[in-house]
């Protein structure tokens, strides 16, 4: 019996790590620009497809694929910021408008992907082959890689925003745009940087996801919803809250699957989320 518990725990940790990574890009954009990027899932999908194209279709290998995937999504992020967010900065309803423009961006990316890559399933090869045994439970080495990589990336992100000048400028802009401009920070460029970085993080999670799941144009839909759940739950506030929320959601999901089965789990997860929001409208840890 305990073997099942441990295996479920491992499953939860893998999910949590993946979700934390997925949500970090969304959270970075939210805390810096105050905007919710509906195209987040689609960017994950593009990252996966581009990596696949460079690595498999063009045969240039995984490293090249990774670089290409990150590069293309970062550029797309900057383009989205410039075309779909920047023109609306000064409008009073910027949040609603950018929700709709990023939703439109998502449609454009998804349908373009359908046109470019078609509907046939593709997959990225594993970066590490084989299985690994942890505490008696067996997971694939790729999944183990995810568990290791996600916290590393999050820590790197944390150090970046707290120690480096550029990273601090992101936080400053998120807290007080005018004051940031008045100490010499170029605010529009900072927004573009934040969006590019957030998009690249989405691309990275997409590439990792693409190595353990099939890549389709609809790859991003479920992660978007999961990332949404994580940031709502964690309160959209800080990176730490996002990471914590991700693991809670990951664990909850793993145990729900164990207890009520795959079919009922998504539904119950939502019920759980909505229940939390009724009692704490700003999320578990959060402030709006």
């Amino acid at each position, binding site marked *: 019996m305990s073997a099942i518990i441990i295996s479920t725990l491992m499953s939860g940790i893998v999910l949590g790590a993946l979700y934390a990574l997925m949500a970090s890009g969304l959270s970075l954009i939210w805390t810096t620009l105050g905007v919710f990027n509906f195209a987040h899932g689609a960017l994950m999908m593009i990252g996966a497809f581009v990596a696949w194209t460079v690595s498999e279709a063009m045969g240039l290998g995984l490293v090249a694929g990774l670089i290409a995937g990150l590069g293309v999504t970062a550029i797309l992020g900057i383009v989205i910021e410039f075309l779909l967010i920047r*023109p609306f900065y000064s409008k009073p*309803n910027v*949040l609603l408008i950018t*929700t709709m423009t990023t*939703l439109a961006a998502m449609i454009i990316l998804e*349908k373009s992907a*359908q046109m470019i890559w078609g509907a046939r399933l593709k997959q990225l090869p594993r970066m590490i082959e084989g299985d690994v045994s942890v505490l008696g439970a067996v997971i694939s080495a790729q999944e183990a890689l995810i568990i290791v990589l996600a916290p590393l990336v999050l820590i790197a992100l944390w150090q970046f925003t707290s120690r480096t000048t550029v990273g601090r400028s992101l936080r400053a802009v998120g807290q007080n745009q005018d004051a940031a401009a008045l100490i010499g920070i170029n605010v529009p460029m900072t927004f573009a940087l934040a969006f590019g970085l957030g998009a690249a993080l989405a691309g990275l999670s997409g590439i990792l996801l693409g190595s353990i799941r099939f890549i389709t144009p609809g790859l991003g*839909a479920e992660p978007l919803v999961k990332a949404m759940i994580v940031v709502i739950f964690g309160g959209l506030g800080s990176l730490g809250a996002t990471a914590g929320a991700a693991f809670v959601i990951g664990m909850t999901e793993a145990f729900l699957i164990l207890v009520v089965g795959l079919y009922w789990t998504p539904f119950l997860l939502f019920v759980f989320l*909505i229940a939390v*929001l009724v009692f704490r409208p700003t999320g578990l840890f959060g402030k709006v």
Partner: protein
Amino acid sequence: MKRNLFLVLSLAVLLLVPLFVLDSFTRHLFILAFIYAIIASNWDISLGYCGVFNFGHMTFFATGVYTTAVMAKTFGINPWLAIPMGGATAAFVALIISAPVARLKGIYVVLVTFAFSQLALQLILSQSQITGGAEGMVRIPYLRIGDYKFTRDYKLGYYYAALSLLTCSTIFLLWLSQSPFGKSLQAVRDNEDYARARGISITRQRVLALVLSAVFTGIAGGFFAVYLRVASPEVLSFSTLSLALSMVLIGGAGTVIGPIIAAFVLIFATEAMAGIRGMEEMRFIIVAVGMIFVLRFTPGGLVKLVSGKRT
């Protein structure tokens, strides 16, 4: 009033259309346009008039679709009854959704209403014994009066049934927008603090707005299921969502006829494009780009929603 004159004339024209449009496909386009017009104009109650960032409107439509489908096919209830049942259930669902939503602010309203639509989608996909899951339900009973099947005469019956539904819905919306309730909704949207100071209960307004917006939307959903004889989870897809949302935005949130006109324009445009080879996905891209253009370039008048209203 110029607008009412316009509406009466349009109705007259639409009544006469079947005299000139004799083929099944074009009439089908009109029927689709009528249905989407109902969806879009009713969405405006919550989004445009009340200023609630409701992203879950399609949930009401889907509720209507599946309620009617299940009642008519699985339980054998007469479609004429099953369709209004769709509306009633949708209103009930709206009541449930509005409970958490009414007190939330800003982005959380978007996220939660959206989460509800995802929840509905999950429910539909997982309960496949009832709903047919990802494949949906087919062979839903059709409408008829006595021996007259509505599919006869190149869908003539369905055309007038859909048109009547749109007419009723529009009269309802026009009445609502002029009524004291409608005005109070706009008051809440335009200046929440002031409205509250005048004794208007924000929560109650939002609940009512959501519920009222669901009624005809649910009925339209039920009609949609019976007309197409199919119920599919596609109604909750992002593509459908963005199509309907574009109609509200391009047509002009906060007006009654705006979304209706936009529905006609977009349905005919997208279906015309679907016929061209290679355009199946492109047409959605075009609609999405259109949405962005409207948000960016159209001055405040067309899209009142985004010119300065708070939640």
